[in-house]
């Protein structure tokens, strides 16, 4: 099997007359912690939407594990091992934390459709195994005490952890994080950095969008910088910090502490 690399080549996405992603190419290697940064409105989330099949791109190629995934539907892409979290947190608000994380186990379950009507000893075993996996994840993300809480009523920082736990429940090979530190305080951000390292130790490649530059410089190994949908630079964090084109792009915007 080809290595779990994600390769974007000349990806372009248009919304009517607006070019949101413009001829973008980058290469995420297996095991990397890769960052995609740029000023607000640069098109970063759109790139993620392209990769995950929510808004398929019109041109270019997206190769994952050696296969073209550009036109696959979202759920198929997840089955191939790519899971993403959302900038705005999309959890199942009226359900409990445990049930939310359990949703991540859906494609790992060996149940058949008829188990929705009749249980079998095998389906019962599958249920137990999956709940077990869910509670192990809750331990990992320190969410044990919130297992039965309704997710919608929990603080933002905890909801973010639940979303990550849910994503990890799918056992992804590539985890795509869309602004995971948004809304977190300094302590929570430190904890997030730790979590990202621990995730990578388990063999998961991480691709993230982030505005918090401290986090980006600390945690990522390689970056692509985009503005107006186009790549303006790529390199290691220290290279990017000194890149004049990047500095110019950010000087225009006021929301990143560079």
């Amino acid at each position, binding site marked *: 099997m080809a290595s779990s690399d994600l390769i974007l080549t000349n990806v372009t996405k248009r*919304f*009517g007359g607006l070019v949101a992603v413009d001829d973008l190419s980058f290469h995420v290697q297996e095991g990397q912690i890769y960052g995609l940064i740029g000023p607000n409105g640069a098109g970063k989330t759109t790139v993620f*939407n392209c990769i995950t099949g*929510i*808004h398929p791109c019109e041109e270019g190629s997206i190769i994952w594990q050696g296969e073209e995934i550009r036109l696959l539907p979202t759920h198929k892409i997840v089955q191939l091992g790519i899971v993403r979290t959302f900038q705005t947190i999309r959890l199942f608000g009226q359900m409990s934390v445990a049930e939310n994380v359990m949703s991540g186990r859906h494609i790992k379950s060996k149940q058949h459709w008829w188990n929705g009507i009749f249980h079998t000893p095998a389906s019962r075993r599958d249920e137990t195994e999956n709940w077990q996996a869910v509670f192990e994840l809750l331990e990992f993300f320190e969410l044990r005490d919130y297992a039965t809480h309704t997710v919608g009523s929990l603080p933002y920082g905890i909801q973010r952890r639940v979303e990550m736990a849910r994503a990890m429940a799918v056992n992804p090979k590539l985890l795509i994080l869309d602004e995971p530190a948004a809304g977190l305080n300094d302590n929570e951000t430190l904890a997030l950095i730790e979590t990202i390292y621990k995730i990578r130790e388990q063999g998961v490649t991480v691709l993230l969008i982030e505005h918090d530059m401290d986090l980006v410089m600390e945690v990522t190994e390689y970056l692509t910088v985009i503005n107006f949908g186009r790549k303006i630079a790529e390199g290691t964090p220290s290279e990017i910090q000194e890149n004049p084109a990047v500095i110019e792009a950010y000087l225009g915007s006021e929301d990143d502490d560079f």
Partner: protein
Amino acid sequence: MQQLVNGLTIGSMFALIALGYTMVYGVMKLINFAHGDLVAGSSFVGLFVFSQMLGGEVSLFVVLGVFAFTIVAIALLGFTIERLAYRPLRTAPRLSAVVSALGASMVIQNGIMLLWGPQMHIFPELIPTIIWEVGGVVVSLMQVLIMVLSMILMVGLYLFVEKTKIGTAIRASAIDQDAARLMGINVNNIIVTIFLIGSSLGAVGGLFIGLYYRGITFNMGWQYGLYAFVAAIIGGIGNIPGAMLGGLLLGLFNAFIAGYISSTWADAFTFILLIVILIVRPTGILGERVAEKV
């Protein structure tokens, strides 16, 4: 050819009713299920006004009185429904408003039944039965009146929406309520206006139905209401010329099915047409495709 005349007559009535649906849906994204029952109600109110209030003798004055009273009454009823059943749910999820609309529909429909009983009533013959024969086709005064009056009303509404300030405000609110509010448009008043206009047009439609079909029952609201709604969808829901076009087309379609296949299959074919349109071109004939932002 005969079917063409019949179809256009029925189509005009559908169009008048469809306008009520499409205007409300355009701004509020809500299917006003109670609208059809308002239309039914207008037939009964017209009957009541004629026989109980104006003495039961036909004259031009009486006919005008019937129309005037009925339109005002039904417009008020429409206003009340908006206030009681829809306004409290402006910010609620869509499903709540749908259910409330169904509830309002039930209330009105059964209100009619409780007041007038479940049996069929006969609407008075306010227009004398005068028939002409033109080239093998039978046309009645009633049909001509319905078509002409409907056309006048529809053109009037079109000009109102396109040329006046209020009309522009309506169109703006239909595109983006929040943006309209930010522009200083009082969206609440616009919504009230829409309900008043839509209900009035529906009232006229209901009176025409009474005049044309003569037999009216309390539960005919859903019958005509659904048809009119189908017409609105075919033309493009939220689109005023669309509702007019859809109404006429559906009337023609209905007449042809009834004339050439069988009237017992008219409903089935109409709804098969609706389902096909929903699958193939849900925005209707004149509607625009709007991309949904994630």
